[in-house]
Every structure is written in structure tokens, then in C-alpha cells.
């Protein structure tokens, strides 16, 4: 039989019982639509999470001291020797943190001041929106310059670009004027609207404005080379600081890159989990298709017998029912995907990736064909005489 005739017959069979056809197509639509919703929302969330983690900007290793003992401070001088002493380290930068407030005109905001130097851009992935980061000259000579976040700039001046403008810092009980040399994207924006309103603003100042090279640094940021193993480097850092540096307290090394990667993997796992739940919906729909096709094959026994008697081959009968279930699933999947796509766009202005939709359509059709395989095979094996007699 020609494919066109088979298609016509399959379509006709579906039209004969419109209610059953509609209900089966609806269950397939729900399954496919749910999968599309889960895939689109999950991937969007994953992308947002990765972008947010990138916004935080911290990667590599962070070294700090835990507890107190009798030893040397983890000073900037000691931190600078790390890069030469431990292999696999590209850049090291000590950080000193103090709290205070920032004022400009009538606006005042609490802030955390971080002492940094010209290596800030190497150890933290900061997006510079205006001006530039601290230079070596500014860091060494304790110039009163500051790099602030865009949210703080907006709060103080009502705009992002405020390079060259003066801000009043209240630090260590004293008021000091600083000039803004750069504005970066706020790292606390990664926490989201509500939480970021509680997080303090970060202001980067030259390290020498907050501490001397001999004083204890609060943390040391370490950026490793791409080919180095972070766990090995961590161990070497601990060993060097404890044995050679004889630092005051227990040395702790935190793998920030590993934490970010772990967060990304967990997000992917969550997406896969939700997809698995969605897949169950589709499987349930396909079981419905299977039952429907079995019922259809039983109803058409006499017709199958006539077809076989007038010369149709068993493979034609098989193709007929496979086509029928594939058509049913295609119609259902198309409706479900269209509805879900429209819902995503209307609710969240999200346009799902066309490749995801195409893949789900193909999956639905293939699964539909698989669901129709058993009824097709059974129908094809019928004896024409017994079928006609039935």
C-alpha cells in the first residue's frame, strides 16, 4: 500500500472516534507541555544561577586563619611570598576588611571597606562599568581613591558613572574624603532583590589605607594556574604558612572555584530531576495511547481481515497502526508545546529554545510510535479468515 493511502486510512481511523482521539492527544499534550515547561524554566534558572555566581566574582582559593595561637600574623608581606614559594599560583592578593559608612550629600549608606591592590582584577572577576580598578601607584601610596559598586553609586548620586566624584567615608571613627576612580557591577546583586538590600555595599580601597604590610590580613585570595590541581595547591599553602610562615592560628583554605562548580552541578542535577518527573507524565500519557491503540485494533478486527483478504500485507497493517499512533502523538505534542510556549512567554517573557521544542516533538512521536508497536504487531498477526468472521 502507498504511504499516502496509509496516512489517509490512519487519519480516518482517528476521526471515527473523536472523543477517544482528543483525550489521548490531550494526555500527550500535557506530558509534552510539562516537559517543555520544566526544561525551559530549569535551563533558565541554571543560566541565571551561573551568571549570578559569576557576578560574585570570587574564584580560586581563599586563605584565612582560624583561631588564635602564638605566631606571626598572616600579613600582606607573608602573602606576597606565597606566589614564589608555592608552585601553581598565578596571583596572590591580601584583603583587609573594615566596616563603616559612605556619605555623599544627604545620602548615607553602610559599607564594608576592603583593602585591595592592583591585583584586584586578577583574583576577582569584576565587571568594570566606569573608570578603572586600583592601580599599583594608588595602592602603594595610599591615595584616597575608591572603587565602588553600581548600586552604591546609584544610592549616593542617582547614577552609575560617578568617577571623579567625592565621597565621604566614615572609617575607624574618622571622616575622610575619597575620590571614586572606578565603578563595578555590585557583587551582592547575585543574591537577588530582597537579600541584596540587606547585604552591605562593598567599597575597595588601597590596602595601605586600611593596614600596613606587616599587620594581619583578614583573607588572602589566591588565583591558581589553569593546569594546577587546587587540592594540591591548598595543601602546599597550608604547609608553607604553618611551617615556614609560623602563622598565628590554624590555616584554612577554601576552594571557591570548587564551590561554584558544585553549585552549578547541583543546579544541573535539579534540572535533570525535574525533567525525570516530567518524563513520568509523558510515560503515563503514552500508556494511555497504548490502551487506546489496543482498543482501536480490537474494534477494527473485521476491517483488518478484509484488508488482508484483498491483498494488504501484514507490514501494511503494522504501518497503519504505527502511523495512527504517531499521528495521534504528533497532534498532541504540537498542541502541548504550543500551549506551553505561549504560557512561558505570557507569564515570564521567556522564549524557549526551538531546539528543545523540536527534540521534545521528535521524542513524543517516537514514543508514540513505540506505544503503538504492540497493537500494530498484534493486528498484523491476525488471520484474515478469523478476523472477518469476528
Amino acid at each position, binding site marked *: 500500500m502507498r504511504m499516502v493511502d496509509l496516512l489517509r486510512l490512519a487519519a480516518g481511523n482517528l476521526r471515527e472516534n473523536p472523543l477517544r482521539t482528543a483525550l489521548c492527544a490531550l494526555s500527550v499534550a500535557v506530558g509534552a507541555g510539562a516537559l517543555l515547561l520544566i526544561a525551559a524554566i530549569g535551563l533558565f534558572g541554571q543560566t541565571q544561577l551561573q551568571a549570578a555566581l559569576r557576578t560574585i566574582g570570587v574564584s580560586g582559593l581563599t586563605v584565612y586563619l582560624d583561631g588564635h595561637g602564638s605566631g606571626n600574623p598572616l600579613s600582606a608581606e607573608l602573602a606576597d611570598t606565597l606566589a614564589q614559594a608555592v608552585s601553581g599560583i598565578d596571583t596572590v592578593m591580601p584583603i583587609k576588611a573594615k566596616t563603616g559608612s559612605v556619605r555623599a*550629600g544627604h*545620602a548615607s549608606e553602610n559599607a564594608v571597606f576592603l583593602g585591595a591592590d592592583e591585583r584586584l582584577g586578577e583574583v576577582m572577576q569584576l565587571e568594570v562599568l566606569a573608570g578603572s580598578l586600583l592601580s599599583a601607584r594608588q595602592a602603594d601610596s595610599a591615595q584616597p581613591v575608591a572603587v565602588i559598586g553600581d548600586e552604591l553609586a546609584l544610592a549616593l548620586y*542617582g*547614577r552609575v558613572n560617578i568617577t571623579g566624584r567625592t565621597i565621604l567615608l566614615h572609617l575607624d*571613627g574618622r*571622616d575622610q574624603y575619597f575620590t571614586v576612580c572606578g565603578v563595578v557591577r555590585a557583587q551582592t546583586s547575585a543574591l537577588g532583590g530582597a537579600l541584596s538590600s540587606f547585604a552591605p555595599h562593598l567599597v575597595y580601597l588601597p590596602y595601605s589605607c586600611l593596614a600596613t604590610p606587616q599587620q594581619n590580613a583578614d583573607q588572602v585570595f589566591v588565583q591558581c594556574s589553569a593546569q594546577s590541581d587546587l587540592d594540591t595547591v591548598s595543601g602546599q599553602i597550608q604547609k608553607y604558612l604553618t611551617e615556614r610562615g609560623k602563622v598565628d592560628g590554624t590555616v584554612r583554605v577554601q576552594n571557591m572555584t570548587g564551590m561554584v562548580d558544585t553549585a552549578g552541578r547541583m543546579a544541573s542535577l535539579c534540572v535533570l530531576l525535574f525533567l525525570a518527573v516530567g518524563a513520568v507524565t509523558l510515560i503515563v500519557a503514552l500508556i494511555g495511547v497504548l490502551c487506546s491503540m489496543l482498543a482501536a485494533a480490537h474494534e477494527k478486527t473485521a476491517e483488518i481481515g478484509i484488508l488482508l483478504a484483498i491483498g494488504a500485507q501484514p507490514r501494511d497493517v503494522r504501518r497503519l497502526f504505527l502511523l495512527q499512533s504517531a499521528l495521534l502523538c504528533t497532534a498532541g505534542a504540537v498542541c502541548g508545546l504550543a500551549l506551553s510556549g505561549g504560557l512561558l512567554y505570557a507569564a515570564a517573557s521567556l522564549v524557549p529554545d526551538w531546539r528543545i521544542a523540536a527534540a521534545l516533538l521528535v521524542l513524543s512521536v517516537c514514543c508514540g510510535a513505540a506505544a503503538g508497536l504492540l497493537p500494530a504487531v498484534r493486528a498484523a498477526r491476525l488471520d484474515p479468515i478469523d478476523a472477518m468472521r469476528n
Partner: protein
Amino acid sequence: MRNRARAVLFTTAALLSAMLAWAWQNRPPAAESVQTAAATVQDIYNSVTFSGTVEAADATALCPQTNAVVAAVHTAVGETVEQGEVLCTLAPAADGGAAQAVQAAWESLQETQGQTVTADDDAVLRAPVSGTVLSLPEIGETVAAGLPCLRIADLGRLRVRAQAPELYAGSLESGQRANVTASAAGETVYGARLDRVSPVAVRAVSLTGQSGEATVEALLSLSGDTGGLRPGYSATVKVFTDFHPDAVVVPHEAVCQRGEQEYVFCVQDGIAVQCAVTTGYMLETVTEIVDGVSAGAAVILSPPDTLTDGTPVEVTA
């Protein structure tokens, strides 16, 4: 014939399409919707605020002629005395009163500065001026020669001794007006005038060795009714350091920055005009424009980064 007609039609269509495309490319830019506000005029006062202490403007301290012990006290703290009135009777001090002398010296260092006079008589202490007794020695207390042991002041004239942070010292000048408030006096605001600013800054060092902020001493004289104040009250001083009459101001959102230069976009005949400005003080909702924009100009609020000089704009409500 048919082919020729087709060719003519095709050529005409191609030409028309090219002309339409060219016209579309060179179409005038659509007017950008913007919100505006007017540049207004207002007086601007700049001030600095710091803390101080209320004290009597005319305080006189009295020192005994010789080391002595207070035998009798004829008045009390807070009483009004006349000049020449006997306040205390002294008895010669016993030898070995070094410890008491040191104590007296330490206490005298705690007193605020003022005029100091030495008693004429070594047996009695008489009020050197008329006024209110602020402090008196007690009976049996040793008073040391040359060190103040009692103080009298005219409470009708008070002043404030304040410590201005070094950051603001440069903007303080004698003659500037000030407002003084004291939490103990409620919400009353007292007028004052800055009389003197110390030429040196002093940095306080705590007993643990930590140094605080360097401060410059400022003396302010109070005017008007100061009945609600007493010497010793903590005061908050707000000195008006600058005054700009009829300053041009625009909302904060009107000022944008390209590179390091600040600009304000004005609307003139439906066109955005980029004006380089010099800003001054930032008030609560407005920014002073020192130069670049005149009063009454319509300024664009929150100009987008894509807005350029000469762009047609449409003002929305």
C-alpha cells in the same frame, strides 16, 4: 513584447524598492520620549555639625596665696555672691601635705579654662567677682598655692566650647552663624556665633594608647535667652559655613556623566541640548548647578545613555 513589459515592470519595481530602502535608511530618527523638570532657584546653606560643651563665658577661678586648709565655708555651690564677699576661711596647712597638693593640682586640671586670680588675703578667700559659685572646696580640704580652688561665673552669659573634626576645620571662620541644641534643653534651638577657632589641632590619646581623631577647638558665643542651658551641658553645634543665594538647582536624576564630565540635557524646541555643567552642593533631592544651566531651563530626567546632543525628544508627562 510581453518580455519587454516584464523587464520594464521588474526594473521599475527594483528602482522603487531601492528608493524605499534608501528613504528608510535616511529617515529622521524617531523622537525619544523623555520626562523633564525645570531648573529652579533656591538658597543653599552648607553646614557642619559637631559636638561641644556649654560653659560660662566669664568664669573666674580663685587661687589661695599659700598652702592652707579650708577651715570654714560661708557659701554654697549655686549661690550668688557679690564681689568681696567672704567665701571661705583658711587655716595654715600642716607640713607634708604633698599628696593633697597633687590631688588639688589634678582636680584643677579638670576645670575648663577661664580667668584665674590669686587671693589678696592668706586667711580668707573673697569673691573676686560677682556671680554664681560653680565650685567650692570642702571643709578640711587642702588647697595649694597657685592652684584654683573655687570658681565663680556669670551665668547670664554662656558659650559653647566645641571640638570640630579636622576635616571641617578648614571651612570654619570667625563670625559664622551657628545653631546650638542640647538634648537636656529639649528641642530649643539657640543662636550662636563662632568667635574663635584654635590655630592648632589636638589629637586625643586614650589610656590604652589608641589615638582618636584630631580636632580643632572652636568657641561660640550664645545669644538670646539661654535660660534652658547650664554650664556642663552637652551641646550639638551646627555652624553655617557657606551660603549660596539664588543657586540654580536641578533634580539629581537630571545630572548624568560621560567619562569624567557631568552633563545636563536641556530641551530646546523639541531638541535635546547637551550642556556641560559644574555641580556644587548636593541637597536632599536636588543638585546645585554652579555653571552650565540657567534657571527655568527644562532639563531631562534620567537621560538614557543613547541620548546625544541634537536628538529630537518628545516630552511626556
